[in-house]
């Protein structure tokens, strides 16, 4: 399954629609993949199907599956929907809604397609453009990560923060991308770090 096929599956999974309804022909591999357990376990119900597909594709573009799981494998789209529904305040939610609507409209305008149907390079271009327009936001300030949230952060920053947070605190992100050890039993302050080793997940203390 190539990335594009995978993204199609992901779009179907997170929106819970049948492939026929958005006239999509599925390969056997895709069908097999879709038969797996639904990884979107969150009860949030804030987005419509189209929004859900776009949000999932944006999250996956930010944190893609590589040789390790990506945002969709990690259930990040469901996390984001939850956070937008319950955790963002009204003003932040309005920024999110508007940003998402603008992104959805602009990909239609520029490419005649929705975001999730674009080529990866086009998806990256869209997000790069949003990021360069947002680049003077306080969200990017050096060292500005030990706070709860930047309330006036633009849509792209909200998406990045929720995606990255949701990803590295997810089970897949913590155990398969980072390393996680619930019961270390010992403390060794002088472990060798190999050039390819990941950080530890979790709350150190």
């Amino acid at each position, binding site marked *: 399954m190539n990335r594009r096929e995978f993204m199609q599956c992901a779009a179907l999974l997170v929106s819970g629609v049948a492939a026929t309804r958005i006239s999509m022909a599925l390969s056997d591999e895709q069908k097999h993949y879709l038969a797996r357990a639904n990884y979107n376990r969150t009860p949030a119900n804030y987005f419509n199907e189209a929004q859900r597909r776009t949000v999932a594709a944006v999250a996956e573009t*930010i944190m893609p599956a590589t040789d390790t799981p990506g945002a969709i494998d990690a259930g990040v789209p469901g996390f984001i929907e939850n956070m937008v529904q319950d955790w963002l305040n009204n003003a932040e939610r309005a920024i999110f809604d508007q940003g998402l609507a603008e992104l959805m409209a602009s990909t239609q305008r520029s490419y005649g397609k929705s975001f999730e149907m674009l080529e990866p390079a086009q998806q990256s271009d869209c997000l790069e453009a949003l990021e360069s327009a947002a680049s003077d936001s306080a969200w990017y300030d050096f060292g500005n990560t030990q706070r709860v949230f930047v309330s006036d952060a633009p849509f792209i920053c909200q998406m990045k923060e929720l995606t990255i947070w949701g990803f590295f605190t997810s089970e897949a992100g913590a155990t398969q991308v980072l390393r996680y050890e619930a019961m270390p039993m010992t403390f060794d302050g002088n472990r060798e770090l190999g050039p390819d080793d990941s950080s530890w997940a979790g709350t150190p203390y």
Partner: protein
Amino acid sequence: MIQSENYDFDAIVVGSGISGGWAAKELTEKGLKVLVLERGRDITPGLDYYGEHAPDWKLPYQGKKPRELYENEYPIQSHGYALNEGNRQFWNNDKDNPYVFDAEKPFYWMRADVVGGRSLIWGRQTYRWCEQDFTANATDGHGIPWPIGYRDLAPWYSHVEKFAGISGEALGLDELPDSEFLKPMEMHALEKTIQGRLRKKAPHVHMTIGRVAILSEDHNGRAACHYCGPCDRGCSTGSYFSSHSATLPAARATGNLTLKANAVVERLEYDAQGGRVSAVHVIDSKTGERSAFRARLYFLCASTVGSTQILMNSRSEAFPDGLGNRSGALGHYLMDHVYGVGVTGIFYDDMDRYWFGNRPNGTYIPRFRNLGGQDDDAGFLRGYGYQGAAMRMDWKTGFNKKGFGAELKESLRKPGPWVFHLAGFGEVLPQYNNRMYLDAKKVGRFGIPQVGFDCQWGDNERMIRDDMLEQGEGLMKAAGAVFTVRMEEMGEPGLGIHEMGTARMGDDPAQSVVNAHNQVHGAPNVFVTDGACMTSSSCVNPSLTYMALTARACDYAVKQLAQGRL
């Protein structure tokens, strides 16, 4: 102990936190029938530690703090660093239990509301006071002299340390006397590198591993730490010292303990004829029902502010300004520590070194300023120490970088450079104007007058802050930091969570509230053994000293009782 029909118990202890747990243990082990009254709800250790070992993905919002809830119900507690969804059940709900908060001059009253009190969520750093701490007031004339010295407390430090289990490294320093230690925890690779450089370039400072009430080896039937990390969610192996892991089980084992949760102490009743307290008045927080209990001895261990609130609310003809308050000192000389100030350095050393296990402890640099006399270049009195710890940057410190996709994922996946932080804790002078009071016009949900605060740091605290920054920056350079960031802003009073004073100890009843044995002047069967009794503040974390003072006062009280003097 012989029971008299007039008494419900031999002793009543108010509060089940660090001090109250110790009072319960010591008094029950000496044979007294003890009632512990605790306003918080009871919990079953282990079973009720729902946050323990919960990975991020099982926490609400995967660990992002629920802001709305905190703003509405925990506006004070969420102002500190420690409240989170793994430990919220232990904290005070600020909406339910308000106090008079002055936004212009804030005092953040950080408190627990549960059996075990803040022993469940404390940072577990444990340091002895030194002789200079006890003589500071007499030497520079701030506050009144302590009636006790290091020699009085040293055996009691040993007594509590042997039971609690303190891990640390002996240094033989006068300014930071050694405890009875279990083996020290290990340092991170970078911390060892820094320690080595400081030895050469800043030989006047000593950097050591944190001294901490956590078992580095099995001890007294409790298991050694398994390095899971976030202790503040509770520890089902009882590896860190809390009332639940250590003192309350010991008290229970004697068969002499009765613990009543949801029991809010309103006031003590003073019997002017007998010259002593005759009863404690209690409100059940669930039903609102009122009751009274009688005992020979009363130990106030409701924390600094909690105990003084009770004394202030115990007015009588004999004590119109609050029990034991003939001096007018009650409520005054409120202290905390200079907190929130420090220096962070970034290091590119030991880049191939990492760690295994979550060490629930940091490093410590004991006070090195104004030792044994005033330093020539110090415009301030007293001193400060630094807590510090090394860690490596990771996705949590770098998620706001630019970029997308595989490259971003890869860069956030791996550890970044090391950071080492020096967090100053500075001594605060005892000042009459820094005080707590009761606001008769505002009452809480049980009809008890609310506490208010009037407290601000002064010039000496600000000079300590300046020195912490200047010296800290120098130490970072000596340690090899390639880049440093200063945390310049002092936390408001209360945020150090080392609040103390307000019922200070002294020989002179005209100037103090309790005597050298924590006994209330004029009410000899009442003892205040928590932070309220502190006459000065030192710069080290205070709880070990409360433990030692409590054990010492219990010993004295029971001896007095045996001699028929109480």
